[in-house]
């Protein structure tokens, strides 16, 4: 055991995994790809995930499904057990999958994750110093005399020029109004806050004395569904607090199109603007409360959002985004007074929206390209952000090509019978046994299952397919020896959670209709990827790195996303998660004027490819309406996996069944 990490060996699989001390044992089994029956998502109510701890220490939470005598014999409920030391854990027969022969032969093998580590972040970006785009300068000015009778404002400008070499400064009207009294009250000892970018040097606030030690900024990702924000200390560059909440605009439509329609009716635009500002204001209040900074310390906000979200926040008419030829009001936006948008944080607080590329490739993507260092790499990189729209960028430091396809809300749980967002009780990980078709599920916060979120759906699809419960077309095999697959008047479905194990007291199912919707969403994304590549005369195999951003980035399992053909099969080690790239990009731009000006370079550099006019899109889309894809040659690892499973199943049916 080192650095709080412990090693768990699962028997009889003979597979080990290294996890943090204190990790949940069921979660560890999932990470190690070891099957333990679990139907309540880790709520401790089904009692099916019994394992035997043969060596090592664990902490068992008392549970009526496990008697003290059983605990004394080493039994534990995996979902109610925390790992305290190196362990050897045996999965007993009743908690295990049908056949053990295949695993007893297997060598111990580590299970690996793919999340981008902090070290990797460092390497991706060019060297940069914290040098915020909004800067505080402490000035001690000489009081005016009959000989030196320069006006107050010009005296401040002279001070900035002499002391900092900052010239061609304008002073905001409000700051100018306060200047004469403030200068004299402070004894000519002031702190000037100015926007200090290549295009603009504008004094936005003047304070008494030296306040340069206290400066913070807020980075905000305005998503269609979720808004996330970070409060940053500009001296240290540290994140002082984080907060996120649903975008309250969701009540007016789940996707950008319905919001645009709402905005074009009556006072809809003003309404949506005030609603999103309301959500942002609540987040700011929460950040300030959590961190203890003063509102007056906040000097600027940097916001990254898709083109429609940016329009709605700035109350710009989004109508022409939706109508052919799809023209936004602007892709580059000015520094805007936060108070004019209804965010009255402190005098002279400005907001900078990260520039967009086109109607359906927005500032969130620009920010993501910045944060993930795609603009700074020699490697051919594919950046994918999957939300309601799937946006994709292909390129490197020399060129960037972007497109957007409407994947639909399926991966966010929309259009799926028991779909939901990744909140408490959402099934986020799924395994389905390849012999008895029983599920193993884990939910967010180990709460009783309520529904299935995006990552859970991807897992479920991949597992149903690998287990042979659904075929390549996403249709159920209706004659399997399990009552989990059943036929209703609307088609077949798979019962993932039975009513008695669910929080909703009804069965949680995945239907053929759900699978169709997910199939269409993944096909749109993959077809977009193919069009991007083919328009550069490139092939999938040439992609050296694939970066995946998006809300479900944290939970999504790469191999499952590849198995269903959402992502190309370019080797799991070449695919990495970036999490919320949009927020991270806004964060960097808030800390560094160099980074902020990079966002402009990136937005200018990116070429936008309109898919609706592309004659090949439909062809590639139909080809992708298949698990993993009609062209199985493009998915060699999935093919290998399928062949392995099929021969296992054959051996199993010949040997035991």
């Amino acid at each position: 055991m080192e650095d709080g990490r412990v090693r768990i060996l699962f028997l009889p699989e003979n597979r080990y995994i290294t996890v943090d001390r204190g990790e949940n044992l069921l979660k560890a089994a999932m990470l190690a790809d070891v099957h333990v029956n679990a139907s309540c998502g880790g709520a401790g109510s089904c009692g099916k995930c019994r394992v035997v701890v043969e060596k090592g220490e664990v902490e068992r939470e008392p549970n009526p499904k496990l008697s003290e005598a059983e605990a004394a014999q080493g039994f534990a409920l995996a979902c109610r057990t925390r790992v305290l030391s190196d362990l050897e854990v045996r999965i007993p027969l009743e908690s295990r999958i049908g056949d053990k022969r295949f695993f007893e032969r297997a060598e111990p093998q580590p299970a690996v994750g793919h999340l981008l580590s902090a070290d990797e972040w460092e390497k991706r970006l060019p060297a940069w110093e914290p040098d915020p785009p909004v800067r505080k300068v402490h000035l001690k000015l000489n009081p005016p005399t009959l000989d030196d009778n320069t006006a107050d404002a010009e005296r401040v400008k002279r001070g900035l020029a002499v002391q900092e070499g900052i010239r061609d400064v304008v002073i905001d009207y409000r700051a100018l109004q306060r200047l004469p009294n403030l200068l004299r009250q402070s004894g000519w000892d002031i702190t000037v806050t100015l926007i200090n970018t290549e295009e603009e040097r504008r004094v936005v606030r003047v304070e008494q004395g030296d306040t340069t030690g206290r400066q913070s900024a807020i980075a905000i990702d305005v998503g269609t569904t979720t808004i996330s924000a970070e409060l940053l200390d500009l001296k240290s560059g540290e994140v002082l607090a984080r907060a996120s909440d649903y975008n309250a605009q969701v009540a007016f439509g789940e996707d950008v199109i319905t919001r645009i329609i709402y905005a074009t009716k009556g006072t809809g635009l003003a309404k949506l603007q005030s609603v999103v500002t309301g959500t942002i204001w609540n987040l700011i209040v929460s950040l300030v409360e959590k961190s203890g900074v003063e509102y007056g310390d906040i000097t600027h906000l940097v916001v990254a959002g898709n083109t429609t979200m940016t329009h709605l926040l700035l109350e710009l008419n989004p109508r022409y985004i939706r109508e052919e030829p799809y023209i936004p009001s602007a892709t580059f936006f000015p520094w805007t007074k936060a108070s004019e948008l209804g965010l009255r944080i402190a005098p002279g607080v400005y907001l900078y929206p990260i520039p967009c590329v086109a109607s359906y490739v927005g500032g969130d993507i620009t920010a993501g390209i910045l944060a993930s260092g795609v603009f700074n790499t020699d490697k051919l990189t594919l950046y994918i952000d999957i939300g309601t729209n799937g946006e994709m960028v292909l390129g490197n430091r020399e060129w960037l090509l972007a497109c957007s396809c409407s994947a639909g809300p399926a991966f966010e749980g929309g259009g799926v019978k028991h779909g939901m967002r990744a909140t408490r009780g959402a099934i986020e990980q799924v395994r389905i046994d390849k012999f008895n078709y029983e599920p193993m599920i884990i939910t967010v916060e180990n709460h009783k299952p309520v529904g299935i979120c995006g990552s859970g759906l991807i897992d479920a699809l991949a597992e149903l397919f690998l287990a042979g419960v659904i075929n390549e077309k996403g249709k159920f095999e209706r004659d399997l020896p399990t009552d989990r697959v059943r036929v209703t008047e609307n088609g077949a479905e798979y019962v993932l959670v039975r009513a008695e194990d669910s929080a909703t007291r009804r069965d949680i199912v995945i239907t053929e209709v759900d699978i169709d919707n997910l199939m269409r969403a993944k096909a749109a994304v993959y077809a977009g990827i193919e069009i991007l590549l083919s328009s550069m005369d490139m092939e999938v195999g040439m992609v050296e790195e694939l970066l995946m951003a998006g809300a479900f980035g944290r939970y999504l399992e790469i191999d499952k996303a590849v198995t269903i053909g959402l992502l190309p099969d370019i080797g799991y080690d070449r695919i990495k998660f970036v999490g919320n790239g949009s927020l991270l990009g806004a964060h960097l731009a808030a800390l560094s004027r160099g980074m902020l000006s990079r966002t402009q370079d990136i937005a200018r550099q990116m070429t936008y490819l309109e898919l609706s006019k592309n004659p090949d899109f439909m062809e590639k889309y139909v080809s992708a309406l298949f698990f993993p894809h009609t062209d199985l040659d493009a998915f060699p690892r999935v093919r290998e996996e399928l062949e392995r499973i099929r021969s296992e199943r054959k051996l199993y049916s010949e040997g035991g069944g």
Partner: protein
Amino acid sequence: MAFNLPVDTAKGKIREVVLGSGDKSRKVGGENILPFHTWEGEMPNRPLLAAEVLDEPGELVPALEKALGEVKGDPVTWAKKAQDEWGVDAIALFLTSTDPKGTDAPADAAAETVAKVAEAVNIPVIVYGTEDLEKDAEVMKAVATRVEGMNVVLGPAKEENHKTIGAAAIGYKQDVAAMTPIDVNLAKQLNILLTNLGMEADRLIIDPTTGALGYGLEYTYSVMERLKIAALYQDDSMTQMPLLANIGQQAWKTKEAKSSEDEYPEWGDPEKRGIMWEALTATSLLMAGADLLILRHPESIRLMKKLIADLS
């Protein structure tokens, strides 16, 4: 200087599928060239012509009634006439009697008809249902069992009923014609589903759905051409099955083929018009890459035989 045709050699090759068994068998496919590009490679089997035979023909246009005469009422003599007098390579027996919207004849009775026809002729038999998903599945299962070992082609297997028809074909060693709605990817996907089921790829024929002249011919043409190019030049194994063109039925149901001279005197002789409509559809699809043509009228069969002989 003499002119040399440019040669573009393909990487792939169409699978050679055996229709029928023993002395009654014929081979279809096997070429590694685009249609009749004989200077570029091999075409071991010229495209095959199958005569359409209906077990319950109903009323036909006068041109067909005249050509069939008495055999119209009996699929066995009809098939024999097609073999002996018209010289076709195969019989395509359509079990129209099983249509649930019509007579809805039981599967066993239809299977019996198939057996009689298959025993009476010494060329292979292709058996088609009525494109009713459930009934076809039931009928083909009965047919596969009844003519076990005769290696007939069962069809059309569609995505929705491919499992039943495929399983019957695997169990009783028959071929399958897999039908999809005019789309390269869908055709390929159905072949993958069938082979995953355990069907040998060398027992599959692609029916990409036929549109007659003026009624979607260009779509069928384009899909056949693209399937052939994918099979030959991209060596895509799941598109390398021979292509079937179901022409007779489609050509003879067009307004141009079935309208009388009273209705459209300016269109001329309806007999000639119908035959030309069928023959022109067939000619176009031969150029697109069809390996197996199902035709209705003996005169169009004669014309196509001559054309194929001239081009081969």
